[in-house]
């Protein structure tokens, strides 16, 4: 089994290195195909590992080599494939393979085609390191690798000012959170003396509650950055500056799920500190409704989907915080499939519309883009949680978990968010695909994407429909590691009322969205309508003014401070002293260059002068050495020790 583990882990790296060979060259189709095939190999190896774990239940654990060994510190490059990581591996490799196939078509006309695949495969490799490592140090390497690759991919079109800005924002936000994560890892090491998951978690119950709480908080800060939880969420929507396949990858498989994975992986820790868990769940519920509300009014297709990711991550954290780790992981998996599908569909629409992102300028696209229309509609139904698609099973479980645990506030917030989710998803679908063809005013001629892109997306379509049926086998498998709590509402009547109620809420939200936005007389909003004048609308379209607050309260003062440091301290003290030393050497050289007249006679004279100086020094020191006591007397008379 070890060979499959290594194959699954290292073939994306190989693919990335292969594409790197041609990174600066013009487009080569092979630089896209080879990484895709290698990722397919990785997917097959992951499937073999999954089959192995399903049939035998044995964890595959290897220690490739020692990384650090100093004193008591021992950190190996160790990898583990257990029930949690194999789930993540399946999600990551499957979605990434689809995204790679899709990107061959999507990046067809981009002149940096080869570089794109180098980054994309490296991204997947980092994520695999993150989920497969058997210790916190390896997890952190993957964590940082994912951050770096996301920077390279969000800022892929680096000649666009907004893209580089978004890339830097994502990277800096993540760095802030990573500091918290590092502190958490240090706390674990200093209290348990090891970074291996199994040993560290085994040592946790003997620690006092306060230490555990701090560990939980700091690790969660790291998770907040990667999974874009409030208040570190702004980068996620801005990350839409990257190419669409990257958005699909970031939102579905790699990057944002890392935070949820960390909390799930550290479940023995969070089980011991239910108060932190409750905070995580509350924050999750808050982010769910907070992000969904921003998606209600947004006029950027990709940002709407990005906010829906944020909202769904909130659901996952709500579940994980309440101790329903397997439910969180299940929703992560189901969400990955339909969210990737939704993003790839949005990429098709973007291509068709000449990179236009405002859904108000589209409309009626279902005639020209039949395949994309079906896929995005199915993905949206799944996202809205309508029976029998994937979202129904995973999202209803989260609601039930909240209800059964008597957290009725969290439950009602999540329930209300489910309604909002259905509404904004179908607002988007209605605006893009239904109604009259508003794009004709802008002189756009849409066309469907390449056939092979649609075929490549079809596995996701299938999974978005059937993933719910994996619930029981998945539950059997993953509860070998995670707490096996089944969430059953005791009364049958309440259970059916809840389920049907949720379904009715989502369905009526969908109908309302269709009624409001699938009409034929939709106009492109220009800020004049009554709705756009209301305070709530302005609050939501400006993302609660949070980016503005960050700009005013953090970025501007920081910029001023940096300017002061640059102008006053760096230039006037540090630069000045370094330049001063250099100038001194320069002027000394200028002054003494006359010595080097090239005249042998002059040189000889200088030689004699040097000889005289050295000789007299020798005499002085010889004298001093032979009369040490007199010298000491003389020096003490001068006040020198």
């Amino acid at each position, binding site marked *: 089994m070890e060979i499959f583990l290594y194959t699954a882990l290292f073939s994306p790296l190989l693919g990335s290195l292969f594409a790197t060979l041609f990174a600066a060259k013009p487009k080569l189709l092979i630089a896209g195909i080879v990484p895709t095939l290698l990722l397919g190999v990785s997917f097959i190896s992951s499937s073999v590992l999954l089959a192995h774990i399903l049939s035998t239940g044995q964890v595959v654990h290897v220690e490739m080599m020692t990384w650090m060994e100093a004193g008591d510190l021992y950190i190996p490059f160790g990898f583990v494939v257990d029930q949690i990581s194999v789930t993540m591996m399946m999600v990551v490799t499957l979605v990434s393979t689809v995204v790679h196939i899709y990107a061959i078509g999507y990046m067809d006309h981009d002149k940096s085609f080869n570089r794109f695949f180098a980054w994309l495969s490296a991204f997947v490799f980092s994520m695999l390191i993150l989920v497969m490592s058997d210790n916190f140090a390896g997890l952190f390497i993957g964590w940082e690798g994912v951050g770096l690759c996301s920077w390279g991919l969000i800022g892929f079109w680096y000649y666009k000012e907004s893209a580089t800005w978004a890339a830097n924002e994502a990277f800096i936000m993540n760095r802030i959170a990573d500091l918290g994560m590092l502190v958490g890892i240090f706390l674990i090491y200093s209290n348990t003396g090891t970074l291996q998951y199994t040993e560290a978690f085994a040592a946790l119950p003997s620690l006092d509650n306060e230490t555990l709480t701090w560990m939980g908080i700091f690790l969660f800060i790291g998770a907040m950055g990667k999974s874009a939880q409030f208040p570190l969420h702004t980068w996620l929507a801005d990350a839409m500056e990257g190419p669409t396949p990257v958005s699909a990858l970031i939102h579905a498989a790699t990057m944002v799920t890392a935070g949820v994975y960390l909390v799930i992986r550290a479940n023995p820790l969070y089980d011991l500190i239910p108060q932190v868990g409750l905070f995580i769940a509350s924050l999750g519920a808050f982010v769910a409704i907070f992000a969904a509300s921003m998606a209600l009014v947004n006029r950027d297709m990709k940002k709407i989907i990005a906010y829906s990711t944020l909202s769904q991550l909130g659901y996952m954290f709500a579940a994980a915080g309440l101790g329903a780790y397997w439910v969180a992981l299940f929703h992560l998996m189901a969400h990955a499939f339909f969210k990737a599908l939704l993003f790839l569909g949005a990429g098709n629409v973007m291509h068709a519309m000449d990179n236009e992102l405002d859904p108000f300028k589209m409309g009626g696209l279902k005639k020209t883009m039949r395949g994309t229309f079906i896929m995005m509609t199915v993905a949206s139904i799944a996202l809205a949680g309508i029976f029998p698609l994937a979202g129904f099973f995973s999202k209803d479980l989260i609601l039930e978990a909240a209800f059964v645990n008597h957290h009725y506030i969290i439950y009602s917030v999540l329930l209300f968010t489910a309604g909002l989710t259905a509404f904004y998803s179908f607002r988007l679908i209605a605006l893009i695909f239904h109604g009259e063809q508003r794009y004709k005013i802008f002189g756009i001629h849409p066309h469907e994407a390449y056939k092979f892109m649609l075929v490549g997306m079809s596995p996701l379509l299938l999974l978005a429909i059937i993933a719910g049926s994996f619930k029981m086998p998945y539950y059997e498998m993953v509860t070998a590691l995670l707490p096996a709590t089944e969430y059953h509402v005791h009364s049958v009547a309440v259970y059916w009322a809840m389920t049907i109620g949720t379904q009715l809420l989502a369905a009526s939200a969908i109908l309302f969205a269709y009624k409001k936005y699938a009409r034929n007389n939709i106009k492109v909003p220009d800020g004049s309508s009554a709705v756009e004048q209301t305070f709530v609308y302005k609050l939501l379209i400006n993302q609660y003014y949070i980016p503005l607050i960050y700009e005013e309260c953090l970025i501007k003062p920081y910029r001023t401070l940096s300017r002061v440091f640059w102008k006053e301290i760096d230039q006037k003290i540090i630069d000045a002293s370094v330049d001063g030393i250099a100038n001194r050497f320069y002027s000394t050289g200028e002054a003494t*260059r006359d*010595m*080097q*007249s*090239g*005249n*042998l*006679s002059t040189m*000889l004279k200088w030689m*004699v002068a040097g000889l005289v100086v050295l000789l007299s020094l020798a005499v002085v020191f010889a004298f001093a050495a032979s009369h040490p006591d007199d010298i000491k007397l003389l020096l003490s008379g001068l006040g020198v020790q």
Partner: protein
Amino acid sequence: MDIGLNHYLVLSTILFSIGLVGVMRRKNLLMLFLATEILLNSVNIAFVAISHYYGDLTGQMFAFFVIAIAASEVAVGLGLLIVWHKRHNNIDLDTMSSMRG
């Protein structure tokens, strides 16, 4: 009056000073070589005298080395001097300034 160590050392010092002045003042390359020889031989005198005074042969051996090296140095130096004279038709030090910095 016996001739002791001091006399030799004074002679050596006087010769060294003469050589030093020659090295600094002379503009003729040939004369410069002569001045260098005077410098080396003044040191040789001091070596031999001190060696004799202490009854230790090391100093005298050192003097032989100095003589041998001085001879080879002059051989090379005179060769260069002849080539220079053939090319430039003089051996004036002031004309040799191609190393000017």
